[in-house]
């Protein structure tokens, strides 16, 4: 009974708090915020002084527009694929008893910890032209069947979903677990068939998790660098690779900055949307 009043009174005084927060704040401002501002600054300071010329040039550049289009194509298709695969996996996890579910979740989360370089390399081993899958296909088809799945669009998508799936699965799982089993049972008693239950109850109620998962995947995939670089072909350059191209190849730092800023803006919009959804979920008490 005493505790609630106590906790509000044993606060750290503002001066001490400021002292404890200062070092980290300074570091974050210097090493994170300031470089971002520098990038923004550079993007609006081409040789001719303060102007938006770099952006104008960018949006007239076929290279940029193509790269932007490729980025969205890859992101959207990758997100869709991970949604199609992730939803069944989330359903599978939902019906597991809690302890087994934890075990499976560890399986799902473990790849999250491994280096993306290792994963990319390993994927080329598995899906490459001389890789496991094609070896197997060659074996069963007498040497005729060989599907090029690496160093092209397919390779990028494969690498992407390998990275994105855990996020999508966890997001949808949250929504599914929060659903009231009673709803399902009530529907069954009323005579609804399995498909109708899925279509009219489970799917709509899982929407918050699906939308969140989609937004998270889009946000993560838009900024991808390693996967397209290692697993894609020349036609699969994404925005992040373009930034690198401008920085190291053409040494056009203004263009690089402008490109980075565009990427930042798109990402910020997605994060804002995600924040809005999360907030709405919190208010309605639905799955988060």
């Amino acid at each position, binding site marked *: 009974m005493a505790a609630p009043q106590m906790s509000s009174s044993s606060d750290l005084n503002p001066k001490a708090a400021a002292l404890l927060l200062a070092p980290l704040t300074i570091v974050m401002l210097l090493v994170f915020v300031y470089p971002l501002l520098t990038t923004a600054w550079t993007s609006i300071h081409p040789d001719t002084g303060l102007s938006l010329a770099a952006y104008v040039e960018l949006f007239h550049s076929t290279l940029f527009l193509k790269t932007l289009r490729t980025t969205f194509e890859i992101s959207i298709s990758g997100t869709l694929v991970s949604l199609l695969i992730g939803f069944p*996996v989330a359903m*599978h996890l939902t019906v597991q008893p809690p302890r087994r579910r934890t075990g499976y979740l560890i399986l799902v*989360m*473990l790849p999250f*910890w491994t280096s993306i*370089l290792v*994963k990319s390399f390993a994927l080329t081993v598995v899906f490459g032209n001389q890789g496991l899958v094609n070896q197997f296909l060659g074996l069963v088809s007498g040497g005729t069947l060989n599907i090029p799945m690496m160093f092209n669009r397919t390779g990028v998508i494969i690498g992407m979903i*390998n990275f994105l799936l855990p996020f999508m699965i966890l997001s949808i799982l949250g929504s599914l677990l929060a659903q009231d089993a009673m709803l399902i049972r009530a529907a069954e008693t009323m005579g609804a068939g*399995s498909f109708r239950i899925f279509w009219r109850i489970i799917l709509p109620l899982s929407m918050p998790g699906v939308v969140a998962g989609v937004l998270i995947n889009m946000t993560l995939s838009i900024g991808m660098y390693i996967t397209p670089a290692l697993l894609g072909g020349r036609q699969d350059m994404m925005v*992040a690779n373009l930034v690198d191209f401008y920085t190291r190849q053409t040494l056009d730092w203004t263009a690089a900055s402008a490109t980075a800023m565009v990427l930042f803006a798109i990402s910020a919009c997605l994060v804002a949307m995600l924040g809005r959804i999360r907030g709405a979920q919190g208010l309605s008490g639905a799955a988060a």
Partner: protein
Amino acid sequence: MTGAPSFGIDRRGVSVVAWSCYLFLLLPSLIVIPISFGNPGEIQFPPRQFSLALYRQFFSDPAWWGSLLESLGVALATTIASLCLAVPAAYALSRSRLAGRALLRGLFMMPMLVPVVVLGLGLYLQYSDWGLLDTSAGLVLAHVTLAVPFIMVSVMSGLAHADVALETVALIMGASRLRIFFRVVLPQLSSAIAVGALFAFLTSLDEVVVAYFVTGTSTMTLPVKMYSAIRWELSPVIAAVSTLLTVVSLSIALGIIALQRPTEANS
């Protein structure tokens, strides 16, 4: 919803998809392990002979094990630095009523939300001005900003679970804030700090994009070297490097999971 309806879709179909997915997620990381013990001449699965040649190749090449040392050093420095910065900050955020707390917390979490390449470029441009390119210190600073969000999440969660009454009673008994922090608060945070530290270490160890922008020949980290190797050389020694990295990553991951279990059991 255990043992509940079949979702209107064939149960077995769902299982097939699910298991394929688990396999797909897990297999790649594991497959490199047997490859690394194979013939040093080619990347092969299944390996035709057992040999440690690739590992010997790795450890005898100063470019490789040098980059490993650099990575370990940077990761260690990053962990220590970000703990020293973030733990007191987390304490201040959770135990004070300072105005602007939410804003600061947002600032500390931001690195998670920004595409890494944007940060990489910004640091590249900024470090050129400051002469921090190709320095370990510069890389450590950069990795600190990436590690801080993880430590924040873990430690703030630990602080939320810590008993404020203990700090109150220590105050009443005459203890100074400093003593309270070290003898009452930190011991309660030991597993949260450990989890945060492991996250920080792993994040720095695996980090490639920012390192790629900010390091040079003398400060090359293992991931950067691996990236170049995969991109341009594709030599089989990469399998050995991958195995080493995977073993380290998985050990750390299991450590984190083990540390997080007791708290889940309590709450």
